[in-house]
């Protein structure tokens, strides 16, 4: 049985939170203790499998039924006069409008949270994106190799002046979509490769597909890319966003 110190180090390694000294300490522990190695392998496999579980979108009609129910409720007028500290009256209406907009955006984006792990044959993405040509001025931030399963190749994260962009250089025998998730923000990219065993050509024939990630933050968080074929997860990769704009 691993001691608590080992457990903390192993879990911190899985979360990518180890500094150099801790990494060295973990390496020494793993070298000396086969049980710790076994624990680490099990936990890593467990977490990789958990990370790769695709989100399942809400059933058709749910968003519409929630939106339809909202206007029938009494709006929260009793508190509209209350203002957060430091906010003057003339800004209050704008904040209220923003709150409503945020709620609707949340409904679209976060709707999947209650439905994950509940199997659904249909994938209806909360937000769709098509593929674009990569800005030549964009700089590479991170990339990951996909070597196992029906999808293989590389997915890379680029950053330009305005946003992050994913570039797909992948091959597969069947058409592949990608689902990108980051801190609750979910984006589905259609046809990152059209299949047939060729490098993806979602945009211009012969060119790798790229897709912008509007709204995805840049503060060093993980961005998970899940590849989907015919409604099934067929691979995944995790990339690290740059820290700070």
């Amino acid at each position: 049985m691993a001691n608590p110190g080992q457990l903390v180090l192993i879990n911190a390694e899985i979360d990518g939170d180890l500094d150099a000294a801790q990494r060295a300490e973990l390496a020494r522990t793993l070298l000396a203790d086969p049980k710790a190695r076994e624990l680490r392998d099990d936990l890593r496999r467990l977490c990789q499998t958990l990370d790769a579980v695709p989100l399942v979108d809400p059933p058709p009609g749910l968003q519409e039924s929630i939106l339809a129910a909202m206007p029938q409720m009494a709006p929260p007028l009793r508190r509209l006069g209350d203002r957060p500290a430091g906010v003057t009256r003339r800004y209050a209406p704008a904040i209220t409008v923003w709150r409503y907009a945020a709620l609707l955006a949340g409904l679209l984006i976060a709707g999947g949270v209650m439905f994950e792990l509940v199997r659904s044959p249909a994938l209806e993405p909360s937000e769709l994106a098509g593929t674009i040509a990569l800005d030549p001025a964009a700089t590479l931030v991170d990339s990951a190799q996909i070597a196992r399963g029906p999808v293989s190749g590389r997915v890379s994260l680029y950053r330009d002046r305005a946003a992050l962009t994913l570039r797909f250089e992948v091959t597969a025998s069947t058409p592949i979509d990608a689902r990108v998730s980051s801190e609750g923000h979910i984006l589905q990219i259609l046809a990152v490769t059209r299949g047939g065993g060729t490098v993806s050509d979602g945009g211009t024939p012969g060119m790798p597909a790229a897709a912008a990630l509007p709204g995805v933050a840049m503060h060093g968080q993980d961005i998970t890319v899940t590849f989907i074929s015919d409604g099934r997860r067929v691979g995944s990769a995790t990339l690290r966003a740059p820290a700070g704009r």
Partner: protein
Amino acid sequence: MLRNVEDARDVAQTTFLKAFEHLADYDETRKFYSWLYRIALNESLDTLGARKPFDPISGDEEDKTPGPEQRAEGDQLSRAIDEALARIKPEYRAVITLRHFMHLSYQDMGEILMLPEKTVKSRLYEARQLLREDLLLRGAT
């Protein structure tokens, strides 16, 4: 989290209606989705708490006969994990959901769960360990 389509539908609807009703209480200094997830999580826990102790899980998502493509080793592990998740306490399932499915930071998880980051981490570590032990017990790793 709920492992039941109808409950999830009800909780989703209640979550957004409650958010709408209490929109004026939302603190702009906090992330909006953290607030929304907290409502969703509380609703989910309330729903789970209201279930009878041995309330069976809906047949919709339980024990479907796997198709040929589901027999691969990775899918077997996914399935075993899925079942193991159903057996751990909702508090542990919640941290697994927020971290591994929603890919949230410990800071965000702390906001949602209203717990210090350190507590969130130790709860997540325990949850992972419990899942591993469950899988080992059933020979699923």
